């Protein structure tokens, strides 16, 4: 599965602007002490000026003065502009000053590097970048950066992030936007949790400014940066995108615009293909069964190839081209599948979403081009089934953690709808372990075990199916890395795409699993130990979240050699908290046979920073319980 609506990503990166006055205080000696705390760099001053001169012309001027304190702050310079057929970099330059404010170097446009944007997945895209590659000879230093960019695309007005990364503080930052009244200018403020940011509005102009924003620290389990920090989105009701005039007044009008200008004229399919898909569907009446047949057809026929040129960054390739070439990007493959489904009478809608392991929503109260990925939605039971059309292997209707549990825009010819995709939390992401073990006189453990995984746990495992035997063996050795010298005798894997279950059967031997130096001692939890304890912070600063919940259930029978009796064993454990529930239970089911039962439910959730220590302590208790040992002595 890949991202594709690439241009968003590029343009979303912070744009900027212009005029640089000579009275800037460039010496680093004047930086207030508190701004250097936890900071690798300090934005001394940033002005972004955006001028929307018409529906088809926007100028973006950027001035950034940044002091870089150490090598880790170098990546915050962001002296980079992107361009393509409709966006031009009119000027770009930088000057470097030392800590006393003495000029060290002037960098002209020709000394910037001009390069294609290798996004890592596109066969071709027409985006290019101009960026500064500077080797500092001393720290701290200050860089003054100026750029002017002009674009005919007004579909994306840069989002303003007063602070755009961890470990960077901001002394002074502002944005101001001038616009024409008839374009339907709009904005949306996100995460304005304090009153530091000031908004100034006047006729046909809006600006924001902030000063003395302190650097933030990254902490484990923090929500994503944009979820947790302020930003302002800007947009137009009437915009231009690669020569297409668009309307984003509300979701209905926006969706019909997408449908009519980007999708409608791509729909034609060759007669032969239509009759082929009709004959495959045959007499099947049920829309979902029909959809399964079509999805299988697409998975077998196509592959993911990303080609992004001009409007092609947003408009799918012709369905007939996908049909002929057998490839396309997420837009093309989703749209092709949609057209095929429609041709056999199944309703299906092109759907725009943010794809990625970190869940990001299409914001319902801000009508504009959003998202970076396309999928397909089929109405079912008052909701929708989503199809990931870029995967040749995903089970029908399974989103995995790339598009699960988030809001998406379903594009209908006469209107749009923001809907939430299916989630795989708690019981829906389950792993069941069943095992039979025998410990022999030498302490070796011989076991047969069976995993059954669904939901996100299916997702995480299913890639191992097609790997070589050697790779699979290594995978299990890593998975069970506490079993030193583990030998794997056999592996059998079944990927049940119908029930969306991943089933693994293993025969293993662990030499010297039980210590026999003094009686018989071993860890009761052979196969599923949690060692995860979130990092301890002296002062936790951020809230935290558990992105996806899951449920594990283990049932393990353990047979021990004759002639031993229990010397010490753990009592049954139940740990219940808002974070989840852990249970461990031990039963004797014969003279020399134990049944170890464990279940661990971790809930999805967002929590205040004050809860963090409680979560750590919950995790510690779980980890300790997973380490419980039993000791036998010889029955003399």
């Amino acid at each position: 599965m890949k991202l594709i609506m690439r241009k968003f990503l590029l343009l979303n990166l912070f744009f900027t602007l212009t005029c640089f006055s000579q009275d800037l205080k460039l010496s680093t000696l004047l930086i207030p002490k508190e701004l250097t705390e936890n900071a690798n760099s300090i934005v001394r001053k940033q002005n972004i000026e955006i001028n929307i001169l018409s529906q088809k012309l926007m100028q973006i001027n950027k001035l950034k003065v940044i002091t870089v304190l150490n090598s880790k702050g170098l990546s915050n310079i962001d002296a980079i502009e992107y361009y393509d057929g409709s966006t031009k970099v009119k000027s770009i330059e930088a000057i470097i000053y030392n800590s006393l404010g003495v000029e060290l170097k002037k960098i002209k446009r020709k000394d910037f590097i001009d390069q294609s944007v290798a996004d890592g997945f596109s066969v071709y895209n027409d985006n290019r970048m101009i960026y500064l590659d500077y080797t500092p000879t001393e720290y701290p230093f200050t860089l003054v950066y100026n750029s002017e960019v002009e674009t005919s695309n007004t579909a994306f007005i840069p989002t303003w992030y007063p602070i755009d990364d961890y470990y960077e503080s901001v002394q002074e930052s502002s944005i101001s936007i001038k616009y024409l009244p008839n374009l339907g200018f709009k904005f949306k403020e996100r995460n304005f949790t304090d009153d530091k940011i000031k908004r100034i509005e006047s006729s046909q102009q809006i600006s924001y400014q902030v000063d003395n924003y302190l650097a933030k620290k990254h902490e484990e389990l923090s929500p994503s940066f944009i979820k947790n920090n302020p930003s302002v989105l800007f947009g137009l009701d009437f915009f231009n995108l690669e020569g297409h005039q668009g309307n984003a007044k509300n979701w209905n009008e926006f969706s019909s615009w997408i449908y009519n200008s980007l999708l409608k004229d791509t729909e034609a399919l060759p007669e032969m293909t239509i009759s082929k898909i009709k004959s495959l569907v045959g007499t099947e009446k049920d829309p979902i069964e029909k959809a399964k047949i079509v999805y299988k057809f697409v998975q077998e026929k196509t592959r993911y190839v990303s080609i992004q040129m001009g409007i092609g960054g947003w408009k799918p390739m012709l369905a007939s081209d996908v049909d002929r070439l057998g490839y396309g990007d997420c837009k093309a493959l989703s749209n092709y599948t949609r057209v095929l489904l429609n041709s056999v009478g199944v309703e299906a809608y092109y759907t725009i979403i943010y794809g990625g392991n970190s869940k990001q929503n299409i914001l319902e109260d801000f009508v504009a081009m959003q998202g970076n990925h396309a999928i397909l939605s089929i109405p079912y039971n008052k909701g929708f089934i989503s199809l990931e059309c870029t995967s040749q292997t995903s089970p029908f209707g399974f989103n995995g953690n790339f598009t699960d549990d988030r809001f998406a825009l379903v594009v209908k010819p006469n209107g749009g709808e923001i809907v939430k995709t299916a989630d795989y939390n708690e019981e829906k992401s389950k792993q069941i372990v069943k095992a039979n073990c025998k410990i022999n006189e030498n302490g070796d453990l011989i076991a047969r075990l069976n995993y059954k995984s669904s939901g996100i746990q299916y997702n995480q495992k299913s890639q191992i199916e097609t790997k070589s035997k050697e790779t699979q063996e290594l995978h299990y050795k890593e998975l069970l890395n506490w079993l030193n010298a583990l030998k794997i005798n056999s592996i059998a894997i079944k990927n049940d795409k119908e029930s969306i279950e991943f089933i693994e059967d293993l025969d293993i031997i662990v030499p010297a699993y039980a210590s026999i130096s003094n009686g018989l001692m071993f860890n009761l939890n052979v196969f599923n130990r949690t060692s995860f304890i979130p990092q301890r912070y002296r002062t936790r600063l951020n809230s935290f979240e558990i992105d996806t919940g899951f449920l594990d259930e283990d049932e393990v029978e353990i047979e021990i050699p004759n002639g031993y009796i229990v010397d010490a064993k753990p009592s049954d454990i139940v740990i219940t908290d808002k974070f989840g529930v852990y249970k461990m239970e031990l039963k004797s089911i014969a003279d020399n046979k134990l049944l170890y039962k464990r279940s661990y439910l971790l809930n999805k959730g967002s929590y205040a920073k004050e809860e963090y220590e409680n979560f750590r302590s919950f995790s510690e208790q779980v980890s300790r319980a997973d380490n419980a040992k039993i000791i036998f002595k010889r029955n003399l």
Partner: protein
Amino acid sequence: MRIFILFSILLISNYAFSQKLELGKVTVEELKQKNHPIESNASATIIFKNGISSFRTTGNGEWVLDTKIDYKIKVYNKEGLEQGNQSFAFYTGGTSNEKISISDAFTYNLVGDKIEKIKLKSEGEFVEKINDNWSIKKLSFPAVNEGSIIEFSVTKSSPYITHIDDFYFQTNIPIDNLKYTLQFPEYFKFNTIITGYEQIKHEHTGSKHIYTATNVPAIKDEDHVINKINYTTILKLELSSISYPGEIQKNLSLTWDDVVKNIFENQNFGGELKKKDYFDEDLKTILVDAKSNKEKIVLIYDFVKSKMTWNENYGIYTNDGVRKAYKQNSGNVAEINLMLVAMLRSVGIEANPIIISTRSNGVAIFPNRTAYNYVAVVVEDQESLLFLDATEKKLLPGMLPLRALNWVGRVIRDNGSSYTEDLYKVQPSKETNIVLASLEENGVMKGKIRKQITDYYAYLFRNSKANINREMYLESLEKEYHGLEISDYKVDNVNDIYKPIVEEFSFVDKGNVEIIGNKIYMMPITFLTIKENPFKAETRKYPVDFNFPARDSYNFSIKIPAGYKVEFLPEPVSVNLIENLGNFKFNVSYANNQIQTVVNYEINTFMISEQDYGALKQFYEIIVNKLNEKIILSKI
């Protein structure tokens, strides 16, 4: 059984030989094939790769090298679909440029019992201009499915006749049949070498050389390999001399001496060593009090290190030149280190450049002007050699950065003569841990640790961990030691690189001691233990690379709680890994209520051969088992 196996191998090779290496001869049997006959997990295979390189002259008498390679590739499964996208880089940065052309490009599929042949049209060909010097030709084949065969012919025409592209006999999928024909005018001479592990047959008649191979397996991914390219089977070629009839032979490179001479006479190498005027004045100031040569070396080395910042560019030649680099305080490897040589020589110290192929560049194995990409410094006196490299500020005299520590280098003397020098004469980096702890009855251990590190350990610490904010570093240390709480942290000599780094801190450990029944269980070096064997695979194809030789020692004393006695102590062990390549000594003793564990661990080499892998794996198994054995205390 034995006979059967032999027979099946014969069959396979028969199958391979029966292939004619011609495009356009796809058979139904080939299209029907479901798995690779030898590597059944292969996602795809190259049925054949047939290359021909030949020389021609253009109308104006310039030589052109044409290399035409025909490919026939079979796709087995969905992972193999990526073969449908192909790309070829070519150089465009000169006065005359390389050109790439594609012909006979088709996808073959089986439709029913018929072979369907689909042409790759221009819509599936792209050129990405990376920057001014490089472009990439990219192909997206149509209708590539499981089972498809794709064929194409790629021709590269290059005016750079002295540089022939490496011919890969091995890649990440199997190659069933390989042929490479090199045909050149009789007045050209070539150096050739084949790297890697696979057998290549070589025949020649006159100046026509033919290399063939069958059933070359896919290159394997193994961990602990510094650069896979060193083990990949590749034909490397270099034009070594030209002797036109009636003219004197022109040696381009034939021996190492020729290669060196070439480099030495290059203005951007030898010429740069002669310039002195730019630093003369500064050097006088620095050396005003210096007496011995030793002092001078260190003063000059420290001066260059503090003045110059490496711009992360490699190369044996200067780019801007030493003079300009000196002025702007930054430069590439050659600028910085040739400057250092010139300075040392100017005060009468015998210093020479040593040219090196970095780890990422692979091993320089045959005389080739492009084999080297790095230059450092060697100071020779009667007794010893001293390596210097001023690109890294935290490096000690005598050390090379890890990137440059790759087998051998070539020292180039003042008079242009040269000799090879072993780069692996490196003393082991040491880590010494001394722990004094006392255990409480409730399982809580409190104590103090003193950890001292030298050489590369210290260098890596100074480069990464030393710049991290203290609080964050401690938090990460607590995470690494799994549950430790750290206080009174102190670190010495971070900035004095001539002394070892010494870290000291107090700790409270609540997580590593277990109380079961009325006994106490703990590992001998508790939180410092090595939990798992880094070598998990059963077999090994390539040697195991180590970053640098190391000696770690632990001296761990634990005072046991009053009222307890020692019930069990792990037995001492002493293991030697193959002729002292590795050593492990372990001893636990008890006296005066103190348990004392002494562990010594050494790896005295950069590499262990694949034949010795079994012994290495076992060596670590013993270490892990021993360090995880439990000391048992019981109540008196």
